[in-house]
C-alpha cells in the first residue's frame, strides 16, 4: 500500500510539473504573440502596393475551394469569393462527388457550361468528370470529380489552377474582401515565402450582407461561444506566437496561401491522412530544410476569414476527434524531425511542444483527474488538496482563455459591443468547467482511433450561416 501511495504521489508530482510546464509554455507564447502581432501590424502598413491594380507583374492567385455536400452555403460563399478585391485571381470550386445538389445549384445559379480545360497530372487524383466555366464570371471554374476526400479535391484544384499562388479555403468560409492583398504582403515582404496562414474566426452569430461581414457578433449558442473563444486562443496567441519563432507547423485548411510550385514539388496534399493541412506544412518545412534552401512559412494575424463552426455536440466531437488523429498522424509521419538538429527550432521546439502539449495533453489531463480521484480515495491526498489542485488547474486555464480575449481587445477589437466582450470573457471562464473535460475526452478518443487506424472524415452538417 505504501509503495502504491508513493507511486501515486510521484505521478501527482509529475502531473503538477507537466501542468506548470504547459502553462509556462502558453504564457511564453502569449507574450511573443503580442510582440509579433504588433510587429505584423507595423509591417502591413509599410508596403503600399500602389501598382497592384495596374500591372500583371504581381503574383496571381488561384482560390481552391473543395465542396462536399455544401448545398446550404455554396452559393453565398462563392458569391463572396467573386467580390474579392484582387487584380488577378481565379476561383476553382471542386465538387468532390457531392451527393446533394451542390453542383446543380452552382450550374443553375452561375449559368455554368462544360468547358475544355487541359488538366496536367502534376499530382495524381481521382478522375475529373468535367470542368465548368461561366461567361458571366470568367474567373470562376467548377471542377466536378469523383469523391476522393478533401486532400484529393485540393490536389485536383492544384492541377487545374494556372496561377502563381494557391489559396486553399473551405467552401463554408467567407473571406474578407481585401484578404488576398493582405496575404500577398507576406510574399512581397519576403521572396522566399512559400506559405502563409491567416486568422479564422467564428462566423456563427455575425450578420452578413453582399458577401461581407456587416456586424460582428458572438454566436447565440453556448457551443458556438465556446468555440469563438477557442479560435481566438488558437489563432491570436497560438499561431502568431509560433510565427515569432519561425516555427509554424499548422496553416488552417480553412484558409492558407501557398506557392503553387512548392506544393507541387512536395507532391501536393497527402490523401491518406485526415490532417492534410498540417501535414503539408510540416512536409514543406522538411523539404526545404533537407534541401538547405531558404524559405519562410508565415502566419499573419490581420487577414481574416470567417467560418461556420459546428452547432451540435456530436459534430464538434467528430471534428475534434479528427483533428487529434490528424495531429498524431503528422507527428508520427515526420517523427524523424523530432529533436533532430538538422531541423533547428522545428525539431527542438515546435515538434516536442506539439507532441507533449498538444498531442499528449488529453491523456495527461484525463489521467490526472483519474489519479487525483484514486489518490483521494486511497487517502494519499486529502480532499482539500484535491480540490485546490483542481481549482488551480481550472483557474489557470481560465486565465489563458481570458488572456486571448484580452489580446483581441488590445489588438484587433473586432467585437464592437461591450456585451459581446463580456460574453466572451464569461465563456472563457465557463469553458473550463465541463467543456474542457469533454474536449479532452474527444481528443483522447481521437488518439485511440488513430491507433486503431481510423481514417474516416465523419459527416459535417452545415446550417448555412452565410445564407441567413
Amino acid at each position: 500500500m505504501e509503495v502504491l501511495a508513493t507511486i501515486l504521489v510521484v505521478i501527482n508530482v509529475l502531473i503538477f510539473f507537466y501542468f506548470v510546464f504547459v502553462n509556462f509554455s502558453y504564457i511564453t507564447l502569449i507574450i511573443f504573440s503580442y510582440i509579433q502581432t504588433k510587429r505584423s501590424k507595423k509591417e502591413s502598413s509599410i508596403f503600399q502596393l500602389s501598382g497592384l491594380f495596374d500591372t500583371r507583374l504581381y503574383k496571381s492567385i488561384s482560390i481552391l475551394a473543395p465542396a462536399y455536400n455544401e448545398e446550404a452555403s455554396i452559393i453565398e460563399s462563392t458569391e463572396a469569393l467573386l467580390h474579392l478585391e484582387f487584380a488577378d485571381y481565379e476561383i476553382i470550386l471542386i465538387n468532390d462527388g457531392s451527393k446533394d445538389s451542390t453542383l446543380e445549384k452552382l450550374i443553375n445559379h452561375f449559368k455554368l457550361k462544360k468547358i475544355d480545360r487541359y488538366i496536367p497530372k502534376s499530382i495524381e487524383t481521382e478522375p475529373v468528370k468535367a470542368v465548368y466555366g461561366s461567361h458571366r464570371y470568367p474567373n470562376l471554374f467548377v471542377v466536378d470529380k469523383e469523391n476522393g476526400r478533401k486532400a484529393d479535391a485540393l490536389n485536383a484544384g492544384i492541377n487545374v489552377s494556372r496561377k502563381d499562388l494557391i489559396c486553399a479555403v473551405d467552401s463554408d468560409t467567407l473571406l474578407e474582401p481585401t484578404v488576398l492583398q493582405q496575404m500577398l504582403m507576406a510574399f512581397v515582404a519576403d521572396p522566399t515565402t512559400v506559405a502563409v496562414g491567416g486568422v479564422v474566426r467564428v462566423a456563427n452569430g455575425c450578420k452578413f450582407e453582399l458577401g461581407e461581414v456587416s456586424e460582428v457578433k458572438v454566436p447565440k449558442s453556448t457551443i458556438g461561444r465556446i468555440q469563438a473563444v477557442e479560435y481566438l486562443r488558437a489563432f491570436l496567441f497560438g499561431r502568431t506566437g509560433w510565427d515569432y519563432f519561425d516555427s509554424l507547423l499548422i496553416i488552417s485548411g480553412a484558409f492558407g496561401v501557398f506557392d503553387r510550385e512548392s506544393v507541387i514539388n512536395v507532391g501536393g496534399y497527402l490523401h491518406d491522412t485526415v490532417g492534410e493541412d498540417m501535414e503539408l506544412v510540416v512536409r514543406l518545412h522538411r523539404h526545404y530544410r533537407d534541401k538547405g534552401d531558404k524559405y519562410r512559412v508565415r502566419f499573419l494575424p490581420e487577414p481574416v476569414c470567417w467560418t461556420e463552426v459546428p452547432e451540435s455536440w456530436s459534430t464538434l466531437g467528430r471534428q475534434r476527434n479528427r483533428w487529434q488523429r490528424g495531429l498524431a498522424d503528422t507527428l508520427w509521419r515526420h517523427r524523424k524531425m523530432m529533436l533532430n538538429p538538422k531541423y533547428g527550432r522545428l525539431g527542438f521546439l515546435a515538434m516536442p511542444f506539439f507532441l507533449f502539449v498538444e498531442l499528449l495533453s488529453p491523456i495527461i489531463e484525463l489521467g490526472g483527474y483519474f489519479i487525483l480521484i484514486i489518490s483521494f480515495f486511497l487517502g494519499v491526498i486529502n480532499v482539500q488538496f484535491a480540490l485546490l489542485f483542481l481549482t488551480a488547474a481550472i483557474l489557470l486555464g481560465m486565465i489563458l482563455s481570458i488572456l486571448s480575449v484580452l489580446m483581441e481587445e488590445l489588438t484587433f477589437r473586432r467585437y464592437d459591443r461591450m456585451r459581446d466582450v463580456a460574453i466572451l470573457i464569461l465563456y472563457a471562464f465557463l469553458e473550463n468547467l465541463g467543456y474542457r473535460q469533454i474536449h479532452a475526452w474527444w481528443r483522447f478518443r481521437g488518439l485511440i482511433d488513430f491507433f486503431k487506424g481510423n481514417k474516416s472524415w465523419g459527416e459535417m452538417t452545415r446550417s448555412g450561416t452565410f445564407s441567413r
Partner: protein
Amino acid sequence: MIDYLNTHAEQIVLIVVIFLAIFSIIVFVGAIYSRWMLNLKDKKEREIRERLSGLVIQYVSGDLSFEDLKSELSTETDYSILMQISNQLEKNLEGEEEIRLKRLLNLPPIRNFFIGRFETKDPLERAKACLYFARQNKIKKSILPKIMSYSSSKYPMLAYASCMAIIVHGSTRQQREAIHNLLINEGVSDQALNDIFKEFQVQSSEESEVESHLLMRFIADKAYSDRRTALLIRTLGELNFYQSAAFLLSEFESLSEDHYSPVIATALIDVLAQFGMSEILDDLHTIYTSSEHREVRESTAKALGLFTDPVSKPILKWLMLDRDFYVRFYAAKSLSNYPDVQMNELNLPGMESDEYSELLGEIETSKELEY
C-alpha cells in the same frame, strides 16, 4: 522534495489558487474596464474625427484657410486623427486639392513625430518615417542623405521605404543608386521592386522617357541576377516607351545561341512581340522554337501568334507536335489567329486523338472566356 511537497502541498496549492483567483479577477475586471475606457476614447475620437473631417474638407476645397484649420488643432489626438483623415483622403484627391492636403502633413507636430522615428533603432519605425517623407511634396534636402543610407539596409522593408522616398525627392543619381541597392538586395521581392518602378513612373514624365533610360542602363550593366534582369525587361515593356524596343532588340540579338538564360530570353520574346518587333522572327523560327527550355518554346509559340507571319505557319504546326501540352496549346491558339487556317484540316499526326479535340475545345473556351 517529495516529503516537502507532501508536507506543504496544501499550502503551496492554496497560495497558487489565491494568486490565480486574484489574477483572474484582475484580468476580468481589467478587460471590462479597458473596453469601457476604449469605448469612451472611441467616442471622443469619433467626435474629433467628425469635427476635423468637415474642417479638412473645407480646407482642401479652398473654403477654409490653412491658418484657420491650424488654429483648430491642439492635442496629440487631433494630429493623429488628422493623419488618419489625410491618409484616407489622399487616394481620392488630385491637383490643387492634393497639394493642399499634403501641406497638412508638414505641420510641425506631425513632421517632428516622424523625424523622431529616425532616432529609433526599429527598422520598421524608420521605414514608416521614410514613407511619410515619400508622401510629402517637398522635404528638406538635408534629410536626404540619411534616407539614402537606408536604401542599402539589410532590412527589405526599410530599403524599400527609403527607395520610395528617394524616388519622390532624390536626384537622378540618387534614384539610380537607391534602385541599384534594391536590385542587389536579394531580400527584396520582385513585387516590391515593381511597386518602386510604378512610383517612378508616376513621378516621371508621361512618356516614361527618364525611367525607360534608367531601366535600359540597368539592363545594359548586366550586373544583376537573371530574375532581376527579366523583371527590368518586363517593366520596360509595361512602360510602352517605343524607343526602348531597339535597345531590347539588340539585347535579344546579343543572347548567346547556346547559353542564354531562359528567364531573360522569355522576357525579351514576350516584350518584343508585344512591341511588334518582327525582326525577332528569324531567331524565333530558327533558335527558340527548338529551345531545350519549355518556357522559351511556349513564349515563342505565343509570340508567333501575334505576328501571324505566313512563314511562321509551318513552324507553328511543328510546335503543335511539341512534347509539352502548353507549347502545343499556344501554338494551336496562335495558328487559330490566321484567318486562312482551319484547325480541323491541318492534317497533323494525332489529330484524331482525344487530346487534340480537348486542345481545340480549350482554345475555343479560352477565346470565349478570355483567359
